[in-house]
């Protein structure tokens, strides 16, 4: 146990060091990078990915996956935004609809995977397509701009960023991320829900034969994922001026990639929420930092892909080592 936990702990620590090293590297190489505004934009762009990654950590740990979170995010945001901007709903009501939609799609995923026993990859690929189409229908094909900061109803944007009287921007969203990670890490490690999520990913049948209601807890993993995709939708709506239908595909890969870099095992049973948070920052730093040293988006994708392969290899090598002993 000692040895094993030190391996897991060390992956998180190593990834954290990678994050710091990347940050230091970009700061040294590029004077433009080491600006307060860059840090702000990295954080702005990170919130929705962090939230998706926290959520998707749960299905990943059960040995499944949720591909619907990216297009889902856009879909929920468009639906909520449409009601607010076109139908005159209060912002709070729109937010609630956004969150509810996430929970509903999450439940649909969970029921299909856990109760109907469809493969998670295919199930969530289908809901990915469905949410993408739904999003366009909700917004009638147009982009939607949630109320701007400072305008009436723009208060929700201050959840993630406060601008002081002197014009300084304070990224309080980051504090929320830390808080949510602490809460969800607690859920994963100290509640039945978390315990059984890991147990299902480690050995579903043995868990079932212990008298655990595995179907319920398996569904819950997807509900959490859907709910966090909706939270991510709120963060996305708060950070970006407009939300375009038809986008969102690919967001989920950044979240899943971050979770895996952070130590979630691609085959389930192992993972941590705090690891996923750190993993996402590797991806966000590469995404924001690489253009500063002259490597454009294409390169950023290639490098992110390579980093991901490395992370999965580490996972496999660890597993092989564990088998030998």
């Amino acid at each position: 146990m000692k040895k094993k936990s030190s391996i897991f702990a060390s992956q998180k620590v190593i990834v954290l060091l990678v994050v710091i090293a990347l940050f230091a590297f970009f700061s040294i190489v590029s004077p433009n990078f080491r600006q307060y505004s860059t840090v702000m934009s990295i954080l702005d762009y990170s919130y929705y990915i962090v939230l998706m990654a926290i959520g998707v950590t749960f299905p990943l740990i059960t040995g499944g996956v949720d591909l619907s979170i990216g297009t889902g995010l856009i879909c929920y945001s468009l639906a909520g935004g449409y009601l607010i901007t076109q139908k005159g709903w209060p912002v709070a009501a729109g937010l609630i609809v956004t969150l509810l939609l996430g929970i509903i799609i999450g439940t649909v995923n969970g029921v299909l995977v856990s109760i109907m026993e469809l493969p998670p990859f295919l199930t969530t690929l289908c809901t990915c397509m469905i949410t993408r189409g739904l999003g366009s229908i909700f917004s009638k094909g147009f982009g939607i701009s949630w109320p701007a900061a400072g305008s009436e109803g723009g208060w929700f944007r201050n959840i993630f960023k406060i601008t002081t009287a002197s014009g300084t921007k304070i990224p309080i969203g980051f504090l929320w991320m830390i808080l949510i990670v602490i809460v969800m890490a607690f859920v994963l490690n100290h509640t039945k829900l978390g315990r059984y999520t890991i147990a299902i990913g480690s050995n579903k049948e043995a868990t079932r034969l212990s008298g655990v209601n595995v179907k319920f807890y398996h569904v819950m993993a997807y509900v959490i994922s859907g709910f966090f995709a909706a939270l991510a939708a709120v963060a996305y709506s708060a950070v970006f001026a407009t939300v375009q239908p038809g986008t969102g595909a690919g967001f989920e890969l950044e979240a899943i990639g971050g979770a895996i870099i952070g130590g979630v095992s691609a085959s389930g049973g192992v993972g941590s929420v705090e690891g996923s948070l750190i993993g996402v920052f590797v991806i966000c730093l590469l995404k924001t930092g690489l253009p500063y040293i002259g490597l454009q988006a294409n390169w950023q994708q290639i490098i992110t892909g390579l980093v991901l392969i490395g992370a999965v290899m580490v996972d496999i090598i660890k597993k092989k080592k564990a088998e030998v002993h």
Partner: protein
Amino acid sequence: MGEVILTMKDIDKSFPGVHALDHVNFEVRRGEVHALMGENGAGKSTLMKVLTGIYTKDSGTITYEGKDIEFHNTREAQDAGIVIVHQELNMLGHLTVAQNIFIGREFKKGIKIDDKKMNEEAKKLFDRLHIDIDPTETMANLTVGKQQMCEIAKAISHEAKVIIFDEPSAALTEAEIEELFKIIRDLREQNLGIVYISHRMDEIKVITDRVTVMRDGTYVGTLITNECTKDDIINMMVGRVIYEDPKTASTVPADAPVVLKVEHLNAGRMVQDVSFELRKGEILGFSGLMGAGRTETARAIFGADPKESGDIYINGEKVTINNPQDAVKCGIGYLSEDRKRYGIVVQKTVAENSTMACLQNYMSGIFINKKAEKKVAQEYVDSLATKTPSVDQLVVNLSGGNQQKVVIAKWLINDCDILIFDEPTRGIDVGAKNEIYKLMNKLASEGKSIIMISSEMTEILRMSDRIVVMCEGRKTGEVKIEEATQEVIMNMATREIS
């Protein structure tokens, strides 16, 4: 027995922290069946892996057909004529028998695979083994026994001169084992050298010519099978006599209350109209051949598989069990025959596995009370004498016997009164077996009621107070321990069903 074909001398192999093989000697002659015995972890598998090139030896020599050799992988060993028939069959279920046998070295006509020729060649192999299998049959449609014969056919197709059987009988029925022995005798006639690894003492006596015993990575000695007794071999294996006499009388009072009553249980082809009673403090043995439907019966009672009909009464009260959750609420615990798949969650700790069935008792609000959890786990580690450095140890790092104890602890912590032990000592070494037996007796004497499914006759006769025998999904008999003999049980287990 012919001349020596293979000699392994002074083989030494260390892994970090383990001296796996300590100057081991082993030889095989042409035309002999040579048993390799020892407890789990004695080094049998390691020795065979060194032989076939999976591991590299640290020192020592291997002489094969008069030449010193060293293989670097199984392919080289195969090409030289040394093959292993594994306990776990490596068959591709969707391919045909012939395609499986010739996988990786298919016959070709141009770029097209020549299935016709492969079928013909496979047929020839089967003829040589005097077995009747259709080479064009899909592998998944064959019984485990037939699949194993395909594996043997595959082995001899490599022009094998030495065949290693690694616990070949583990998954076979008595009839299939007979057939296997016929084939092994045939191969012996054809002057092959055969290594037979098994835990089953009875088989060793029946099929082998010599026995080499290993213990803790060392070579203990080699005996002529005919000239030694079971106890001789076991003494060499463990250094003590462990076989106890069969139980002669039940210790359960005749008026002990019935805790579990199953009536006319039906669940698919493997469970047809099964009825029986289990009394308080009783160990009820479930005997039968592989595939008799005993595990299926247990799983149906436990709610792991759906039932078609039948009633279950616990302490006289009718209960509905639709899933394992219901069964656990009724105080039934099930220890699966396949621990790794169904019993334990390997990547979790001893403590986490221990409370898996009753986590609700170790909660403070919505949070798991890890202190209480560890405390109760530690209590059961102590009382069951589970060997683990701490309750924080991952169960994957424990030995089979100790994993089994963790599963037992799981059900005891949930205060289960009815325990179903399905092959409780499978894959567990002799010393640990004894401990599990003692533990079961202790539990029964404390008033727990136990259903013990076992394919080992000695285990059935040693542990049971009463024995239910099944054959092909039906209960074919029930016998008190006082009247039970191997012959009586085997007769019931093989009864023709009209």
